[in-house]
């Protein structure tokens, strides 16, 4: 019999410093997705890109100056416009993706709209090409070389129940019809494409459109899958959340390895990182039960941290203060950005004087064999914004966090060791 009571080390770390706002930009429009941080011209200068509900793409420099704005509003005739939800007809509901499609050393920006148009813009915000699908594009666009020909393909799902594959020039290579709308951003594994649909299915198809496997969850799959070597070996696993409240881990053949139950819908891509230095990957994600979860590679909960509202945007894993320990950055619909200790915290349960308990008949065995406490999430910093946080991104070099809020504000939050 192992006596654990009182022997567990408390893992909490106390940190100095604070989060401070460096600037705030008001786009004066609703934002629906996290920003994208990139070096468009390969000059070392970072750009902050984001789309708005009214259909504009903004490019800001690191000091919040507008570099350019692209208006993706499509011209429609008087009758057609009556059939549209005018407020969201042109909305950009996912983060833009970037890739050097033309091979000129500068990156293009690719994104889809509610009107079903995918645009590729050059680094100056000028259109390179556009492609019209039959239905809305609500998930992100992925750009990868799927067929191994050395050229990237542009892949996205649509409300018209098709997965589209375009070449780098915006020409349709192929499209595959499934039985429901696609709102999840696809992921690519070698020459296979994995994506979720609104009837709860996860599809894995080959570049040629052959269905390799499907896996059924019980509700819409809106999150992007993430692929990782969970156990540190060569085997890769697909991790994806569903709005049926479960996080699923599948093997490469689509067989369920484990599933983890939360109490809310899971909308976003999970983050993978070795947060406890065990050479395996842990999974960190948010749920609409208001919690951020850290789950180990076997699907066991390590810790969770509860905020006051849903967590819909993906979390970020980074060492924000450069102390050698990872932090989890999560934006919540409760308007707050939370920075959590990736290792969590061990909290002892309240137990009245040990001697007193030990003397009670029947208590001895329970007390000495059970855990004396539990792991929980540990908040290090919290920063309140002016609206629902729809996503954030990090500028790797400066560790600045760029937060998009539904109200239209873009906040740049930086870590400071000590207040002046």
């Amino acid at each position: 019999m192992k006596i654990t009571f009182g022997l567990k080390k408390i893992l909490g770390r106390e940190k100095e410093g604070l989060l401070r706002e460096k600037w705030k930009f008001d786009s004066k429009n609703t934002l629906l997705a996290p920003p994208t941080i990139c070096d468009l011209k390969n000059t070392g200068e970072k750009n902050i890109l984001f789309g708005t509900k009214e259909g504009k793409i903004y490019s800001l420099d690191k000091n919040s100056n507008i570099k350019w704005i692209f208006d993706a509003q499509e011209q429609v005739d008087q009758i057609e416009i009556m059939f549209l939800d005018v407020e969201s007809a042109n909305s950009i509901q996912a983060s833009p993706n970037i890739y050097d499609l033309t091979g000129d050393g500068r990156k293009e920006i690719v994104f889809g709209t509610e009107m079903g148009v995918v645009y590729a813009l050059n680094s100056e915000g000028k259109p390179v090409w556009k492609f019209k699908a039959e239905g809305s594009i609500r998930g992100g666009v992925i750009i990868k070389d799927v067929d191994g020909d050395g050229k990237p393909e542009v892949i996205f799902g649509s409300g018209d129940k098709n997965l589209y594959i375009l070449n780098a020039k915006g020409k349709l290579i192929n499209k595959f019809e499934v039985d429901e709308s696609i709102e999840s951003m696809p992921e690519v594994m070698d020459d296979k494409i994995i994506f979720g649909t609104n009837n709860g299915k996860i599809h894995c198809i080959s570049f040629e459109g052959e269905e390799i496997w499907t896996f059924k969850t019980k509700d819409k799959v809106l999150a992007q899958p993430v692929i990782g070597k969970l156990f540190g070996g060569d085997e890769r696993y697909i991790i994806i959340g569903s709005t049926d409240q479960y996080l699923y881990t599948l093997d490469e053949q689509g067989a369920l390895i484990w599933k983890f139950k939360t109490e809310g819908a899971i909308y976003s891509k999970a983050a993978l990182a070795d947060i406890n230095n065990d050479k395996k990957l842990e999974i960190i994600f948010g749920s609409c039960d208001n919690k951020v979860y850290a789950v180990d590679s076997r699907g066991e909960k390590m810790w969770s941290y509860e905020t006051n509202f849903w967590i819909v945007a993906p979390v970020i894993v980074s060492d924000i203060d450069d102390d050698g320990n990872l932090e989890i950055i999560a934006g919540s619909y409760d308007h707050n950005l939370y920075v959590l200790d990736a290792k969590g915290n061990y909290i002892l349960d309240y137990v009245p004087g040990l001697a007193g308990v030990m003397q009670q008949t029947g208590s001895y065995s329970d007390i000495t064999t059970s855990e004396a406490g539990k792991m929980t999430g540990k908040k290090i910093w919290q920063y309140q914004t002016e609206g629902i946080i729809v996503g954030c991104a990090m500028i790797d070099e400066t560790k600045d966090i760029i937060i998009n809020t539904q109200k239209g504000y873009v906040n740049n939050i930086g870590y400071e060791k000590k207040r002046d």
Partner: protein
Amino acid sequence: MEKTIKRVKTYIQGLDDAMQGGVPAGHVILVSGTAGSMKSSVTFNILYNEALNGKTGLYISLEQSYESLNQHLSNMGLRLDKINIQPVKNLTRIEEVIHTVKNNSTGSIIVVDIGTIRKEIKDIKIADNKSWLNVIKNVVKKVKMETNCSLFVLDSLSALYTLSRFEDPRVELFYTFEFLRDMDLTTFLISEMPLDESKYSEYQIEDFLSDGIIHLRLTPFRRNIIKEIMVVKMRATNCNNDVFSLEFKNGQFQALYGGQNPLL
């Protein structure tokens, strides 16, 4: 001190008195009843009488054509020539109609005949299943923003459900009702009840979302059918929930107190 609530009359003699003078302005009211129970007539009569008082109302008919509605109302004895009634049978005409209403000093009713519009565009592909709901919202928004419209009738919710598939009715109806409340219009949503009168609305969520329910029914009595009306629910109102007989005499609706059973 109790805040005075602005009310819109139903113009049914006897019923307004049973509701502290009418329905609270800005409320979304479900008007439920089986076929032939005079739902359209009662609601149009409200717009008509308000128009006689200089107000502007919007009536969106999803199935009954403007001509059929017009004929029916004229047969009832409503003097439509006394108000500015503007039919919209083509969506491109909406701006022109709004312009006419804005420049007219008398009260107006804009009748949007979606049935005729549907016939006209039946071969045009509609983007998704929310399209007709979007048309209704866009028309309401446009009319509300550009005129002094204060009343809206949708005839009917049941027809809307056949045109626009609601994947998640609870969520989508919540946002639709909130949209109507945000528009600050006194809204009457006509709901067709099944013959057994087992429910006031299709999904029954509408019962909770609405601010009030007015139930119209047909009750067989001897060799006749009696029309009856009752206020099932009316928020912010002390109302008499008894069943009234509904009659239309001399160009006026009347709610006659008759207790639970039809008049003997």
